[in-house]
């Protein structure tokens, strides 16, 4: 399946956030011991990146089917029943996204009206919190897409992760690369 630019950017962003968080924490430890210097802003920046990773990543998780759930009942139903249950579940997921979206807009609005600055970074606190409404908008859109795909019969149900398959895939990927690495 060919992915469009948005999907690639989404994947690139969460990988970048994770890498950047790791590097910042590492550099901070090194700086403290080797150069006797601490970045006061490091922790806050990492925290905001973590928020970005979680809340911008949720929708990505829906698209790639990373979220886990229990599909025992759904599997025991016929294809028609599974589709109906899948549509209900997708509708409830949309409801969840909308409720939190409304709450997060109110929350960001409130923080903005108070107008406090972040502790160590030179930005106002509401700015990093924008990942909440943004992330939940994306989540809502993804579930809406999924809902229509289920209703129109293009998808069988919510795509849940097969955690076992994932763990296997991760390792098999490793085996391939190992053999490649051994050759030269």
């Amino acid at each position, binding site marked *: 399946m060919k992915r469009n630019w948005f999907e690639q950017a989404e994947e690139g962003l969460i990988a970048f956030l994770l890498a950047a*968080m790791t590097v910042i924490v590492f550099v901070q430890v090194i700086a403290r011991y080797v150069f006797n210097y601490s970045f006061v802003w490091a922790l806050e920046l990492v925290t905001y990146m973590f928020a970005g990773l979680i809340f911008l990543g949720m929708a990505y998780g829906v698209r790639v089917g990373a979220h886990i*759930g229990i599909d025992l009942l759904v599997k025991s139903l016929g294809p028609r029943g599974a589709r109906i249950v899948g549509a209900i579940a997708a509708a409830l997921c949309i409801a969840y996204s909308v409720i939190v979206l409304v709450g997060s807009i109110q929350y960001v609005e409130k923080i903005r009206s108070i107008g406090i600055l972040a502790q160590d970074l030179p930005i106002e606190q509401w700015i990093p919190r924008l990942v909440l409404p943004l992330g939940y908008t994306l989540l809502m859109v993804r579930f809406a897409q999924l809902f229509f795909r289920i209703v129109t019969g293009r998808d069988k149900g919510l795509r849940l992760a097969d955690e076992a398959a994932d763990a296997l895939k991760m390792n098999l990927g490793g085996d391939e690369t190992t053999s490649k690495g051994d050759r030269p």
Partner: protein
Amino acid sequence: MTIAFLFVMLFGFMLLGMPIAIALGLSSLLTILFLGQDSLASLALKLFETAEHFTLLAIPFFILSGAFMTTGGVAKRMVAFANASIGHLRGGLAMASVLACMLFAAVSGSSPATVVAVGSIVIAGMVKAGYSQNFAAGVICNAGTLGILIPPSIVMVVYAAATETSVGKLFMAGVIPGIVLGLMLMVAIYFRARYLDIPRQPRASLREIISAGRKSIWGLLLLVIILGGIYGGVFTPTEAAGVAAVYAFFIAVFIYRDIGMKQVPHVLVDAARVTVMLMFIVANALLFAHVLTTERIPQAITEQIVAMGMAPWQFLIVVNILLLIAGNFMEPTGIILILAPILFPIATQLGIDPVHLGIIMVVNLEIGMVTPPVGLNLFVTSGITGMSIVQVVRAALPWLSVLAVFLVIATYVPWLSLFLPNLLF
């Protein structure tokens, strides 16, 4: 009334096949909207606070370091070392795979990852050496659960965050129980192998053992860095996790050269995906726990239990049964975040050490991973062996009894968990 509303919705949503995270989140949101006083904005605040939780920040880093360690041939080197050291004993190959699981658990915080990493190498080898596939798969499926008991452990980080217990103490507390469980599995293997008369392997020379040990030392140093760094006060557990991730990257790419720089983005995406999945559950489970506390549910239960005059040992039986049931239906992180706020205050009232309670919870969740219907290790073992789930369940059952005996020991011998943390901290 509220609690019934909350839990009925949670189970209903989960049965519909909704992602666990959203089932947790939606049931909490609806409970608060209909029965509580919190504003929607304050719930959004609660969700955002997940990212501001310094302890939880360790999770993405441990996942990343585990991902680097899993993609590389770290497990292969550990298996080689384990085989060289104890492979010549009766049932040695199976014992060595338990040892390899213990070693790998020390670089990975996840049980299914341990089963896959070690199992995909050793099961075929054991079958070739004359073990039945059932024997091999059953041993690995159970020994893999050591992944969450031997530090680093993601489940322990979550427990620490939920109960404000020290991550360092919990990690230390997992060491002795992890070794004891490993030894118990090995003893069981010895007797089983003697009964089945499984042939021995030739003894490796001391030089071979040292050479194999040298090759796997880079991986094992990871645990030394984490535990030593936390214990020595060099860094916080979260920083230790970050350093571990960079170290694991360095080892995989430059020392072992199992992966090239080209594969690094892949590993990052994989780790980020797992992080997102897990943290989305954590964020919503924290919301769920928030509803429990604002409705004063833990307090109500504590009062009732204390009023009933329940002795600590009776309470621990209840804890074990509750966790064993929950472990069959839910994923460990969610269970910890829902049940820890309920069990923790009761345990404190009864004088049970929070660190000990943490270990009890972890051991219960280990058992949950090898029991159907949501036993992740079963699915993973079935994936790497091609056996059906039913076959794997049957293969794992005899060894599960070892875990059950160990659960009783871990529950009623607090010394096992508390000796090391009390000695060191």
